[in-house]
C-alpha cells in the first residue's frame, strides 16, 4: 500500500531545458549521483596525496625539509577527515545511494528531487569550506581527525587560529547536506517502490544504503552539536569542553567543561559512522558476489536482518574508542561485551558471502576480483577489530600502529575495494561503455597486494608498541632498526599503490570516450536497474510505464529456467522454481 502512492505518480518530472539545467542544476538523481561521486573522488585525491606525504615522512624521516611537525599533523588530520566523511560517506551514500536507490526499487527519481539537488550543493559548499582552510593563516587544523579538545583550539596545535573554525563549519554544513540526502534515501525506499517491490525483495545494496541512511540521520546530529559547541568554545569563550587549564604557562579563562563529553558526542557519531560506510559496502558486495557467481545470495533474510541488527547495535558500542580515555573504567565491561556481540551478525555476513561462492559458477570478472579482495581484507580487518574491542587487550594496543592497521584494513581498504568493484560493475549502465579489462586487472592486483603489504606489518609494529601520530619515532630503545626499515618498505608499497590508482582514473576517462559500447545488461543481472529501456537510463528512468516486480533480486541459476538469471520483472509461470519472498 505504501508503495503505490508515489510509484504510480505520473506527474511530469521537472524536465531540464538547457545544458546547465541538465548537468549543473540537475534534479535527476543520476546526475546528482555523478556530481557527488566526482566531487568526492576529487577531494579524496587530495587526501590520497596527503597520505603520500605522511608516508614519505614516516619512511624517510629527516629527508624532506618541507615536512615539519606542524604540517605533518595537518596532513594526518585532513587525510583522516576527508577520507572518512567527505570521500567514503559522500561517495557511498551521495554517489551510490543516489544512483542505485531509485533504479533498484523502480522509482522515477528520489521523492524530493529539489532537496536532493540542494543536498549536493551543500556538500560541495562543505568541501569548499574545508579546502579553504588550506589557504588561511596557520593552515588547516592539525588536531587529529578526532578533533579532541582542549588541544584542538589551543596554541601548540597547528591551525588553531582559523583552520579549526573552517573544519567545524564545514562539518556542520556537511551534516546539513547529509540530512537532506538521507531523508530522500529513506523516504524513497519507504514510499517510492514500484508495484511488487516488497521490502524483502529489495537487493542487499538498497538495504545497506537504506539502513546506513537511517543511522546517519540519528548519528550525525551528535557531530553537529559537538561542532557547534566547540565553535562556541573557540569563538565566544563558552566552556562546554574546556575545564580550567593553563596553556603555555598562561591560565586561560575556561572553567568547568568536560573534554570527555566531546569524546562521547564524537564517538556516538563516530562509531555508527564506521557502519554508515560499511553497511552500503556490505550490501553492494553481496550483489556483486551473487551476480558474478551466478548464484542467489545465500541466506538473504539473514543478510537483511544482520544489516538491521548491526545498524541498531552500532549505537551501543561507541565508548570502545574510549577505554583509556579516563571515562569511568566500569563502562569497559558493557562496551566490550556489546562490541564483541556485533561480531556475530558481522560473521554471519561473512559466512553467507563465502557460502554464496560455495557451489557457485564463479566468473572472475573485474568486479568479482574486487569483491574477493574485499572478502580477504575484511576478514583480516574484522578479526583484528576483536583485539581492540576486547577491553583489556585494547589497553596496550590503543593509540599504536595496530589501530592504524586495523581501521585502514576494515574501513579504508575494504570499502574502497567494494567501491572500485561497484564502479567497474555499474560503469556500463552509467556510461553505456565498457572499460579496458587488462588495465582494470592490473589496477586490481597492484592495489590488492599493495594494501596488504602496507597494512599487515602495521599490526606488528603496533604489537611492539610503536605509537601513532608521531612525526618521528626518534631514538627509542624498544623500537629496533628493523622497525624503521619496515616503515621504509611500507612507504614504498604505498607509493606503488598510489601510482596504480592513476591507472584507474586513466581507464575510466579513456573508456568514457573510447570504450566499446556496453550491452544493456552485460552481466546477466536480475535486479531492476539492468532492465531499463535505455542505457544509460533517461530522465525518469523507465519510459512511459513503471516496471512491475514479481520476484526477489537473486533468481540466478534457477533449476528449470531457460537462462541462468531471471529478471525481477519476469512474471512467474513457465519453467523455473519460484522463491517465495
Amino acid at each position, binding site marked *: 500500500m505504501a508503495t503505490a502512492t508515489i510509484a504510480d505518480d505520473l506527474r511530469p518530472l521537472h524536465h531540464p531545458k538547457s545544458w546547465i539545467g541538465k548537468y549543473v542544476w540537475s534534479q535527476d538523481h543520476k546526475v546528482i549521483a555523478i556530481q557527488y561521486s566526482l566531487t568526492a573522488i576529487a577531494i579524496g585525491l587530495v587526501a590520497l596525496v596527503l597520505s603520500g606525504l605522511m608516508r614519505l615522512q614516516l619512511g624517510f624521516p629527516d629527508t624532506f625539509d618541507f615536512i615539519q*611537525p606542524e604540517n605533518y*599533523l595537518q596532513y594526518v588530520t585532513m587525510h583522516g577527515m576527508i577520507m572518512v566523511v567527505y570521500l567514503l560517506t559522500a561517495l557511498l551514500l551521495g554517489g551510490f545511494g543516489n544512483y542505485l536507490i531509485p533504479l533498484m526499487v523502480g522509482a522515477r527519481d528520489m521523492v524530493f528531487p529539489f532537496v536532493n539537488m540542494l543536498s549536493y550543493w551543500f556538500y560541495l559548499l562543505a568541501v569548499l569550506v574545508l579546502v579553504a582552510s588550506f589557504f588561511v593563516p596557520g593552515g588547516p587544523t592539525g*588536531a*587529529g581527525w578526532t578533533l*579532541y579538545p582542549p*588541544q584542538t583550539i*589551543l596554541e*601548540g596545535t597547528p591551525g588553531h587560529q582559523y583552520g579549526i573554525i573552517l573544519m567545524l563549519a564545514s562539518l556542520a554544513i556537511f551534516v546539513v547536506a547529509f540530512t537532506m540526502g538521507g531523508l530522500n534515501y529513506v523516504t524513497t525506499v519507504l514510499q517510492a517502490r514500484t508495484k511488487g517491490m516488497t521490502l524483502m525483495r529489495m537487493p542487499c545494496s538498497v538495504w545497506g544504503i537504506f539502513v546506513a541512511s537511517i543511522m546517519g540521520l540519528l548519528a550525525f546530529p551528535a557531530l553537529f552539536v559537538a561542532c557547534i559547541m566547540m565553535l562556541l568554545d573557540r569563538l565566544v569563550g563558552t566552556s562546554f569542553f574546556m*575545564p580550567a*587549564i*593553563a*596553556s*603555555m604557562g598562561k*591560565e586561560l579563562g575556561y572553567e568547568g567543561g*568536560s*573534554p570527555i563529553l566531546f569524546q562521547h558526542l564524537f564517538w556516538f557519531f563516530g562509531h555508527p559512522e564506521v557502519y554508515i560506510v560499511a553497511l552500503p559496502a556490505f550490501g553492494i558486495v553481496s550483489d556483486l558476489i551473487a551476480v558474478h557467481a551466478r548464484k542467489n545470495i545465500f*541466506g538473504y533474510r*539473514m543478510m537483511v536482518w544482520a544489516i538491521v541488527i548491526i545498524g541498531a547495535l552500532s549505537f551501543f558500542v561507541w565508548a570502545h574508542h574510549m577505554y*583509556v580515555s*579516563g571515562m569511568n*573504567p*566500569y563502562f*569497559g*565491561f558493557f562496551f566490550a561485551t556489546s562490541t*564483541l556481540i556485533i*561480531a556475530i551478525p558481522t560473521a554471519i555476513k*561473512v559466512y553467507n558471502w*563465502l557460502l554464496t*561462492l*560455495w*557451489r*557457485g*559458477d*564463479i566468473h*572472475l570478472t573485474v568486479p568479482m*576480483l574486487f569483491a574477493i579482495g574485499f572478502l*580477504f581484507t575484511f*576478514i583480516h580487518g574484522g*578479526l*583484528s577489530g*576483536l*583485539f581492540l574491542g*576486547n*577491553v*583489556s587487550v585494547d*589497553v*596496550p*594496543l590503543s593509540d599504536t600502529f595496530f589501530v592504524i592497521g586495523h581501521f585502514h584494513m576494515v574501513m579504508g581498504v575494504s570499502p574502497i575495494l567494494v567501491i572500485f568493484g561497484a564502479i567497474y560493475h555499474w560503469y556500463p549502465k552509467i556510461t553505456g561503455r565498457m572499460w579496458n579489462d587488462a588495465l582494470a586487472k592490473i589496477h586490481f592486483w597492484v592495489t590488492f597486494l599493495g594494501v596488504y603489504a602496507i597494512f*599487515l*606489518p602495521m599490526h*606488528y609494529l603496533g*604489537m611492539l*608498541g610503536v*605509537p601513532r601520530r*608521531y*612525526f618521528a619515532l*626518534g631514538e627509542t630503545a*624498544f623500537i629496533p632498526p*628493523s622497525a624503521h626499515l619496515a616503515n621504509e618498505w611500507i612507504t614504498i608499497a604505498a607509493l606503488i599503490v598510489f601510482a596504480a590508482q592513476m591507472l584507474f582514473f586513466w581507464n575510466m576517462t579513456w573508456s568514457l570516450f573510447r570504450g566499446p559500447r556496453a550491452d544493456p545488461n552485460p552481466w546477466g543481472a536480475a535486479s531492476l536497474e539492468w532492465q531499463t529501456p535505455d542505457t544509460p537510463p533517461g530522465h525518469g528512468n523507465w519510459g512511459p510505464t513503471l516496471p512491475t516486480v514479481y520476484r526477489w533480486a537473486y533468481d*540466478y541459476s534457477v533449476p528449470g529456467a531457460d537462462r541462468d538469471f531471471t529478471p525481477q520483472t519476469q512474471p512467474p509461470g513457465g519453467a523455473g522454481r519460484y522463491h517465495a519472498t
Partner: protein
Amino acid sequence: MAVAVVIALLVLATIAFHMLSPWWMTPIASNWGSIDTALMITLWICAAAFVALNLFLAYSLYRYRARPGHTAHYEPENARLEKRLTLWTGLGIAGMLAPGLIAWNQYVTVPDDASVIEATGQQWQWGFRFPGQDGVLGTAAVAHINADNPFGLNPLDPYGKDDVLVETNELHMPIGKPVKMVLRSKDVLHDFYVPQFRAKMDLVPGIVTYFWVTPTRTGTFEILCAELCGVGHHAMRGTVVVESEADFNRWMGEQMTFGQLLAEAEGDKKVQLAQASAPRAGGR
C-alpha cells in the same frame, strides 16, 4: 584460478610473516601478564578463523570457477547451517571475551596496599609527585600554578606540604610494589604509556584518572605520550627507572618536598608565598 592460489598463498605468507616478524610485544616488565594472555587467546581464536575462512574462500574459488557445462547450485537458505555457524561464532566470541573481562576486572580493581604516584602532563613534559610522609597527596588546582608552584598545589593545604615533587622527566619506582598511578594534566589530553608495562591511561585536564601497575623487572624504560597533544607530541618523553627498594629510597631522599620548595622560594624573595597566594580550594 590465479586468485584462488594467491588467496591461499596470502594466508601462508601471513602465517610466515607472523613467525618470522622481529616485531612483537616488548618483554613485559609488569604484573599485566593477564593482558598478554587475553591478547594471545584473542590472537589464536582470530588466527584460526582467518586461516579457515580464507582457505575455504580459496577452495571455493578454485573448485567452483566458471567453466563450460558448470552451473551454480540453487539454494536460497539453509537455516540449520546458519544456526550452527552462529552458535560456533558465539562460542568463539565468548572464549576471547571472558579472559578479556577477567583481566579488565583486575585492571579496574586497585589493591588496597598500592602506593600512590601522580604523573602530571603538560605540553610537552612530564612531572611526578609522591604523597610524602603522610601518604596523602595535597589538593592542587590550575589557579595555583605559577613559576614557584609549577604543580599548582594548594599552598594552604597541610597535606601538600610533604608532597615530594619531581620536576624532571625521570621517574623512579620500586620493584614488586603495586602502585596506583594517578594522572593529572595541566593543559591538554596526554597519555601515560610505558610499552613494557602494557598499562596506559589518558591524562585529562579537569579530572584525575588512574591505573595501577606492579613493576616486576628492574631497568630503565621509556615513557611515551600516547594521546595527540600538539606539535611536540612525539617529543614528549620520559623515563621510568625500576629499581630495588633501597635504591628507590635513596633517590627519594634526594628529592625536594613542596614545603622545602616553598621555603626556598620564600627565602629568595623574602615574601611569604603561602599567604600571598589566593586561599583557593579546588580539586587535586
